[in-house]
């Protein structure tokens, strides 16, 4: 029997060690094809992403759910708000 889920599964972008096009660019691309309410988690080994991504999110008006660092990898979770 199918089980009802509160939210769609979170999409993960594994951008560890990728230098081009870069974690923020990947997130922007993924946001375009996501549905409102979807959550996307970006994994990045680039310290800059921890400030870049929140800056863009604020500017555009999406929701920053969390940021954390685990062993040199930044996990940034974003929710598409519009």
């Amino acid at each position: 029997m199918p089980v009802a889920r509160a939210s769609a599964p979170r999409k993960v972008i594994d951008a560890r060690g990728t230098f081009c096009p870069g974690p923020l660019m990947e997130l922007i691309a993924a946001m375009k094809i996501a549905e409102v309410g979807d959550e996307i988690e970006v994994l990045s080994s680039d310290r800059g992403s921890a400030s870049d991504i929140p800056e863009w999110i604020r500017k555009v008006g999406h929701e920053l759910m969390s940021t954390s660092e685990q062993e040199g990898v930044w996990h940034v979770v974003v929710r598409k708000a519009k």
Partner: protein
Amino acid sequence: MRILIVGGGMGGTILANNLARRLNNELKTGKARITMLSASDKHMYQPGLLYVALGRMTPDELYRDQASLLEPGIEFHVDPVDEFQLDKNQVKAKSGKTYGYDLIAIATGSRPVPEEIPGLAENSINVYTEEAALKFFQTISRFQGGRVVIAVGVPHKCPMIPPEVTFTLYDYFKNRGLADKVSFHYTYPIGRLHSLEPVSKWMEGEFAQRGITSETLFNIKEVDGKKRVVRSLEGSEAKYDLLVAVPAHKGMEVIEKNNLGKGGWIPVDRNRLNIEGHTNAFALGDTTNIPISKAGSTAHFEAEALAENLASIVKIGSPTRDYDGKVFCFIEAGKDKATYAMFNYNNPPDPKPPTKSIHWFKMAYNQLYWTSARGLL
């Protein structure tokens, strides 16, 4: 073992040729079979489109017959795939024929989708198809002066196109004696001029020398052709007389239609390139969801790693190596100079100042490409 390769572009062609050489004996004895299905009997050298757009090459110089690029022993059909039935190990093609396989590799590439942004397709020029490149040249050759805006969407094919198109177009107008009549304004989606930080730093200097202005964190939202203004998702706008777009791309419709990946991007393992949930189905080149450049060189290095793995699956039953994220990109820097960036998952790029010799190497590569596609380089 039956190996099916879908797509006869850069990735598919290098993979097929590399495999055919590794499996020479197996092909002769009938132990292995390689079949390629593509949408066209021609192969286009896509980077040449930039030169077509600037009037330096004509479109006929960009094409070769696909069959002539393939090693003997590879079966080639122009029969685009319509349905991927990965659970049944088969695909259905346009002709109505079904092709079964033991191993499949999908390399169907990507396409620009300017029509997805209101007003963009009608009001801008780009270099991404033969038709667009010709329109690009006709438009710039009629242009008599004004403000040129370069606006970049994501994701796009070839991360070097934004700087290349800017610098080469700048030179084009300068050569026409219009330097004083044309100004350049460059916009980019993230908080610097290029996704590669060292390239971005280098561009800052080059922009300063040429008086090129810029705005970062600018993602194209819509274009108002009447007012000649492009607006960003972030709430700002840029006025243009000539709008040059690097439009966002998607994978092929057929990928999305078959539920292989949203936006036409197929989720694969970043080292082994197998499609998530499948051990005998792989994807390479532009169509994967791996966050690295959608570039011919990515397709090339992925194809080499995958060829080695598919050949070892045939020979010893399991893959033997990982793709390490290697990419190599030339960067045309105008004034007959060029540089390059090389990197992988673990080592960042470190582009050097542009030189004439790298520009000439790139010119030579435009011809050497055909050797590279044959898998010889």
